[in-house]
Every structure is written in C-alpha cells, then in structure tokens.
C-alpha cells in the first residue's frame, strides 16, 4: 500500500508518505520522524509512556494508526519548551522530583497537559491522581507527579483569578 497523510506536528505542517497501514502514530513519530521523546513502553495501551496530544486531546499513540489520522494536529513532548525556556509542567516536574529514571516522564507530562486542558480535575489532588491513572511510573514517583501537576494547576487558577479581578 502507498498512502500519504498530512499532519501538523508541533505546529509544523508535514506531508508524510506511509509505506504500510500498520504504522502507528508512535512508530511514525519515533522511527520515521525521529521524534524520540515519545516513548514506547508496553506498546499495548497500558502504560501511557506514548501519550501525545491529538487535536488537543491526550491519547495513547501506540494504539492509533497513522493512516487514520490524516489532517490531525499533533503535539509531542518536543513541542512544549520554547527554546531554552521549559514549559511550566517540565519545570514543575524538575522542582518536585517527579521522576527518577525518566522513561515515563514525557508521557506523564503530555498526559498532565491533556488533563489540564480537560478542566475536570481542578486543584483536587484525588481527581488529579485519578486523571493520571493511565500513566504508570515504575520508579514510583507518583507523589511528586501529583505535586507537580497540582502546582501548575494552582498557578493557572491564580493567573485566571487575577485576570478576572
């Protein structure tokens, strides 16, 4: 099969030739586009290491066929920092020791970004933990991860309050 799709990846439009319909978004990003920040953990939708945003929503890229996503807007961990300036979530993960080995971290951060966009958890630690349950961390950095997400969420809420006031 010869199939080509268009994707916008981290703000850059790209035309991509797919050699095989079996290619997942995860494999496309890593193997063909060399964006290796997105990690392959279980490759079966269980660990969340491959989490990316598609049209602003977090999904498991290992279970998404690239051929099904023509026209999609994709954000990966590589798209978060602005030059040397870290995204607030990246900075908060460092500040709160929210990782040890770091393998799950890109997925955790992309999932946290999706969680914040969804506006369901607010500053409730239990809702954040529940909303992040699709991202496993074998090092057990969950406490730090929750703190980091909570901090970014609180800062966002304060900014919003200041804007309203």
């Amino acid at each position: 099969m010869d199939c080509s799709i268009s994707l916008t990846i981290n703000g850059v439009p790209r035309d991509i030739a797919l050699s095989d319909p079996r290619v997942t978004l995860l494999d496309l990003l890593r193997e063909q586009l060399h964006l290796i920040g997105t990690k392959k953990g279980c490759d079966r939708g269980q660990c969340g290491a491959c989490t990316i945003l598609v049209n602003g929503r977090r999904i498991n890229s290992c279970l998404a066929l690239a051929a099904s996503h023509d026209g999609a807007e994709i954000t990966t961990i590589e798209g978060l920092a602005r030059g040397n300036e870290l995204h607030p979530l990246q900075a908060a993960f460092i500040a709160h020791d929210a990782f040890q080995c770091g393998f799950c971290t890109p997925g955790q951060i992309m999932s946290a970004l999706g969680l914040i966009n969804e506006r369901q958890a607010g500053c409730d630690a239990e809702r954040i933990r529940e909303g992040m349950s699709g991202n496993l961390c074998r090092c057990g950095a969950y406490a730090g991860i929750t703190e980091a997400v909570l901090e970014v969420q609180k800062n966002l809420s304060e900014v919003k309050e200041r804007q309203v006031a």
Partner: protein
Amino acid sequence: MKSFEHIRPASVSDAIAAASVPGAVYLAAGTNLIDLMKGGVSRPDRLVDVMGLPGLDRIEPLAGGDVRIGALVRNADLAHDADFAKTYPAVAEALLSGASAQLRNAATVGGNLLQRTRCAYFYDVACACNRREPGSGCDARGGENRLHAVLGWSDACIATHPSDFCVPLVALDAVVEIEGKSGPREVRLEDLHRLPGDTPERETVLAPGDLIVAIRLPAHARNFSSHARYLKVRERTSYAFAVVSAAACLSIAGGKIAEARIALGGVAAKPWRAREAEKLLVAAAPEAESFRRAAEAALAHAQPSGENEFKIELARRIVVRALALAAAGTPERVPALPGSPFAAVSGVLAHA
C-alpha cells in the same frame, strides 16, 4: 501484526459493502482492536475505518424525550456532556470508571459495546480458547479463573464482557441502532450480546457488514436521574476492569420505591440485567433489608465457573451497596474516584 488493507469509506452504505466480505472488520478508534491485532488474536484482512463517516458523532435529544448517541461519540465526550451526565448520572459514572483518560478520549460508544473479553486465555494465542478458535477447548476452565463468569457461562466458555458503560445502559433499556445489508434495524442492548452456549465465537447478534450507528436511551430512563449510581470493585484503585460491578437506578415516591433498575457487570458474557430483583423492590422501602432480598434474587442462579465462588457473595454485596448509594441520592458531581467503593468521605484521599 499481520498486514491488512485499510479502507476509508465515505458513506455508511459504502462501509457496509466494504465490510460485508469475509476477513473484513470495522475499525473505529482501535483501542481494543489494534491491541488484539498486535497480539495476533484478531487477524483481519481488511479494516474498514469508520471514523470519517459523517453524522455519527452527535448527542441528539429527540422529540418525545429520547436521547440518541452517535456510535462515534467518544467515551470522554459523552461522560463530560453536562446535560447527559445530569440526566443519566450512572452512565457517566460508569464511563469514567472505565479505562484511562487517554483511552476514554479515543474510544467510541460503538466500540465500547463491541469490545472483546479480557479473558487472558482469549488473549494468549498459545492457549486453547473456544471463543477465539472454535473447538480448541477452554484453558480458562482449569486455569486462573477467579475473575471469570458466575452467570450464564457454559462448558465451552467462562469469559466475561468487560464493559462498564453497557451495565447502566442495559439497566435503562438502551436500544442499539444498526445499519446492515438489508437496511436499518434496532435491537435492545440487552439482546446484542449472546451468552456463550456451544458457540462462544458468536459474541453478538450482528451479521457480517452490520454497523452500529447509534444507541438510544428512552425518555423513561430520565425518571431515575436523582437516584442512580454505578459501583465497581477493582483489584486496584483505578484503571482496571471490574471484578464485579453494579448499576442501580431507583425512582422513589412517598418513601417507597416506585421502580428499580439493576444490572451487573463482570459476572457474565453480557451485561446482566436483574429483572427479578427489580420486581422485588417495587413498593418496598428503600432500606437494607429490601436491598439484600433483591441482591439474593439477582444472584439466585449464580454458579462458580472455577475458583470464583467469592464473586457471588461479592456481587450480592455490591448490589446492596449500589442500591443504598442510589437511594441516598445522586451526588452533585461524579465522585473523584468514579464508581469506587473507596473514599466515601469527600476531600479525603483514598491513598495514604
């Protein structure tokens, strides 16, 4: 993964034509199917990708009070639709108790109905499984089967249907709208999934080419909005399939139960409606004694299919507790841990 042809039809009729040939299957979000294909459990020759079909991603209130949910509505979008969640709170809670946020963002309503069992022997192609390979046997019978069925199972298959979403839907008399080679038709969701009998490989009443285009909840289902809960016991706090779950929906008038709806999940190869239990609750007081009587009736025909006798009493207790929670009233908002038996106290972490 075996190679396949990927087709993106432009219309429902094109989709049906493309999917009616042997070896063809529908692909929606793929959160279950792609996983099955990676494991060699499903080996289709052709994927008919329905995500581009127009008009199937809407939640529409219909004249007369029914609501119609397009088959391509994402699980997360339905659960977070404010009107829907307020009117059908047990459905929203069930959706949010299932899978992870990432999967709910992708997975569709139609796909949720048609997801396959999570029986480990079905997934392991080195094992005998009558559901995957008719006539090969059932390694679950003598294997790790503590999570398997206690109702409606057969010697050929003891697998369960894993959906949370389907459980309150069956309780609320949801109807499935299907388009097929001979035109449109409807079946009650309760009749969509088949019990295994001697042919566990025939999991639903769908024929080749049949496409679920929507589900519908009847207007009557609105009567339960203020007393509706879903309760789900898992082996970990979140992101796990049900060991046992129950949807309980009540309408209460003058201190008595006017009508009750009860369905169980994780106990059978289909979402299990407990009609005898419902009847016992009519005109009863909403109290522990009535709930226990109903729970006894719901599990009256339950039999262990292996080392899972504990599930029968667990299911009774979950029915009692779901009914008690429903009687206490639907919470303002879906709890932080949806469907969870833990964290009853608001604001208190379920984790140390």
